[in-house]
């Protein structure tokens, strides 16, 4: 970047070019500053959420309502994707296993890959889409239409009422949704296996679970809690910090989905590394 001679400015000789240059630099430093203030915002937000999570007056009713919204209302979507995940996984891997003469390993393999990875990540991503965007849009529109301000002036802490309840509900419900998706996936896998040959349900299940160990399930469940927390937090953060004007509601919903999906995948990578270290 070219430097602007300060003498130019002092003498008032600043040409259009140099003025434009200086404006550009200004805009750039402003952008860099924006990232920093954004980061500070996130930290501040998390701090507030953390403090309010452990405050005395917990909004239990709103928490239950959110659990219902997040958990129950997502069931149809999660059921379909869970079942299809199992069917598809079975149909795709069956020919390979047949080639190796290892078809009996199919239930176990599907169960392990569903429980360890497919179930949490795919359900997590779907929840990031459904729940993250929902929170972003809902809180965003509440912000834009001053409903959050209205709560504040009725001496209700909006972080406590809106944000903490949603984050906790997501942290609790998303792992349950993931376990549910795992179960339906195994069921779907049985259905998929039945397309090619007759397998009894009981046999399939006992074969599947004879391979699954505690160290498959436990890290996956822990990981799911983190997925839930991340989705809830990102959705609420984007919504709660939406700008002015209706267009920022769309932006909040959109960036909630993008960021939540990205973070789900990043958390997954980290979790996989840690579990791998623990296993060996």
């Amino acid at each position, binding site marked *: 970047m070219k430097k602007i001679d300060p003498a130019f400015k002092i003498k008032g000789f600043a040409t259009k070019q140099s003025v434009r240059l200086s404006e550009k630099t200004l805009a750039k430093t402003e952008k860099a500053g924006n990232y920093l203030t954004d980061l500070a915002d996130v930290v501040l937000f998390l701090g507030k959420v953390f403090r309010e999570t452990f405050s005395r007056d917990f909004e239990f009713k709103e928490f239950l309502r959110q659990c219902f919204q997040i958990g129950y209302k997502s069931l149809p979507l999660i059921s379909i994707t869970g079942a299809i995940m199992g069917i598809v996984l079975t149909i795709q891997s069956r020919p390979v296993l047949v080639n190796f003469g290892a078809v009996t390993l199919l239930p176990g393999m599907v169960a392990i890959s569903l429980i360890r990875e497919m179930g949490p990540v795919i359900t997590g991503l779907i929840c990031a889409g459904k729940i993250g965007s929902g929170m972003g849009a809902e809180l965003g529109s509440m912000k834009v239409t001053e409903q959050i*301000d209205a709560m504040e002036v*009725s001496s209700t802490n909006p972080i406590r009422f809106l944000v903490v309840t949603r984050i906790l509900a997501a942290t609790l419900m998303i792992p349950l949704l993931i376990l549910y998706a795992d179960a339906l996936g195994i069921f779907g896998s049985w259905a998929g296996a039945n397309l090619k040959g007759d397998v009894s349900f009981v046999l399939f299940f006992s074969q599947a679970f004879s391979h699954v160990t505690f160290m498959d399930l436990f890290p996956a469940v822990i990981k799911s809690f983190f997925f839930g927390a991340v989705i809830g937090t990102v959705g609420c953060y984007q919504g709660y910090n939406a700008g002015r004007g209706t267009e920022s509601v769309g932006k909040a919903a959109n960036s909630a989905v993008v960021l939540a999906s990205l973070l789900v995948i990043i958390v997954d990578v980290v979790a996989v590394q840690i579990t791998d270290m623990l296993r060996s």
Partner: protein
Amino acid sequence: MNKLQAETLSGVATKKKSKEPVVEITNLRKGFGQQEVLKNISLQLFTGENLVVLGKSGSGKSVLIKCVVGLLNPEGGKVEVLGQNVSTLTRETLGELRKKIGFLFQSGALYDSMTVKQNLEFPLKRIKKDLTEKEREEKITEVLENVGLADAMYKMPSQLSGGMRKRISLARTIVVDPMIMLYDEPTTGLDPITSDEISSLINEVQGKYKTSSIIITHDIKCAQNTANRMVMLHEGEVYMEGKLADYEHSTDPFIQAFFK
């Protein structure tokens, strides 16, 4: 009328009323980025009075009352409500103070995931905790009747018209009997008849609960009906302060343009 005259006039007004102000704003300054909205505002709201704030659109009237209730932080100057400096309060004390303040949002700000009844219950449950279920119910019915919308109790905000939303929002604000009321354009978008009803409701609230109110309005009729005193904002400063008659007889072209 020029600025100097306006200042002496306000001096007279403060001398006449030796009462303690419930809201005292001194040299308030507030802007957004480069834009200066309020440059230097000083005004007082006394116990039991209706103070009407006039000003062009975008002159910062809404910003002014948001500073009073602590939704926006001033950049300079001081806002004192009931003797407490709003910007230095902790969250808890500010919360306690806000229980005494009613705030009618210009946009209504009804909670659109809740029914009308739940909208009114929300502040009631949080501010008047000692009410029984039955008392709450009675209070809600009474207030809804006051705004003429008793039959909208179980509707969702999305099912209401713009004017109805405004009135429900007003009901939600007065249901907790605040000591200080801040009305942001209570009659905008209402027909003249409803508008008059709202004006008399404001007066009724003032008479019944000795409420002190700041009323922001463009509606000259509403101002005429409710004002004990009026303040005109212009370019971030108090342009004129006085009684209704002072404005009506003013020869200042800017004031005249408002009152025609």
